[in-house]
């Protein structure tokens, strides 16, 4: 009984296949080929195969017309751009706002100069412009006053 059932299902599957195959008798109208050739001739005859460099580039992108190839290419490009963006923006994004400076990162300045600039040891010293008021007493040090990188000297020499 089971074998008969299986055979029946198999026969029906075969019949469905033969039924669908009847669609191969459906044909376009007799003028299709001429019409199609004429339309394509009009569209293509004036351009060389491969067309412009943009067409060639797109053709290369579409190797074998496999969409996954394009997908991989576009994904890689986006990933590259994202990494680039993160690296560019990374300084301010990842560094802690008030991370203590390592001892060897501090500028080798005399203690007096540091006191002139500010008593604040935080990293902000190197970020924001610091106005340093130069009094005569400040300039008594040997050589120019050493200041943090973004300091702006303000003189009162009237």
């Amino acid at each position, binding site marked *: 009984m089971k074998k008969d059932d299986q055979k029946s299902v198999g026969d*029906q599957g075969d019949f469905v296949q033969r039924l*669908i195959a009847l669609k191969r*008798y459906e044909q376009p109208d007799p003028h299709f080929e001429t019409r199609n*050739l004429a339309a*394509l001739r009009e569209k*293509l005859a004036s351009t060389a195969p491969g067309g412009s460099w943009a067409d060639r580039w*797109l053709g290369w992108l579409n190797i*074998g017309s496999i969409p996954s190839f394009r997908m991989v290419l576009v994904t890689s490009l986006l990933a590259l751009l994202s990494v680039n963006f993160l690296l560019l923006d990374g300084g301010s994004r990842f560094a802690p706002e008030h991370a203590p400076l390592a001892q060897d990162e501090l500028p080798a300045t005399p203690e007096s100069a540091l006191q002139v600039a500010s008593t604040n040891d935080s990293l902000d010293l190197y970020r924001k412009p610091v106005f340093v008021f130069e009094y005569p007493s400040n300039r008594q040090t040997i050589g120019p006053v050493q200041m943090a990188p973004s300091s702006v000297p303000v003189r009162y020499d009237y």
Partner: protein
Amino acid sequence: MVDEPKIVDDDALLPPDTELVSQAKDGNYAAYEELIRRYQRRVYALIYGMTGHNQDTEDLVQEVFVKTYHSLSGFKGDSAFFTWIYRIAVNRTINFLKKRKRRASDVSLDDADQAIERDPTFLELRSRESPTRDIALEELQKKLNAALQTLSEKHRTVVVLHDIQGMPHEEIARIMDCSTGTVRSRLFYARQQLQRELSEYAP
């Protein structure tokens, strides 16, 4: 069983596809036109089977040949030209169908060739119908088309390539960029669904 159409022309006088492709790449439009002549009906049949709409099919056939022409420089000949153009046609049509969802029931069918009247399957159907209700060809066409449209794009493509165009599993796998196991599996499930849709014609 379905008669498998021959993929390569037997006529030895005709130049092979590779030669025509090479000439077309060098700017010989006549060579490309020969390729169009060679494949336009097959490409039409493939797309028509997938869309069930003859005007959409004509537009897509033109798009495929335009696209192929502009991509000729990228064709390295790793696969047959036939496989390549079929792959472009399948991808193009699947993309089109995804956008066309709204018109799934809107069909515009081609006329069936008179030869269908002598097909054993059609004769079998006719012999089973009652004398008062002769099988209407147009009605059968519509039902076959409606049944095909119930399948997903990929399942429909496999059915069209195998059951209508008589293509072997291996060739379909190459065209659809998948394994032969996937092709067999899709064919199996597609036929199960078609069997349900077309149960009224079952023996």
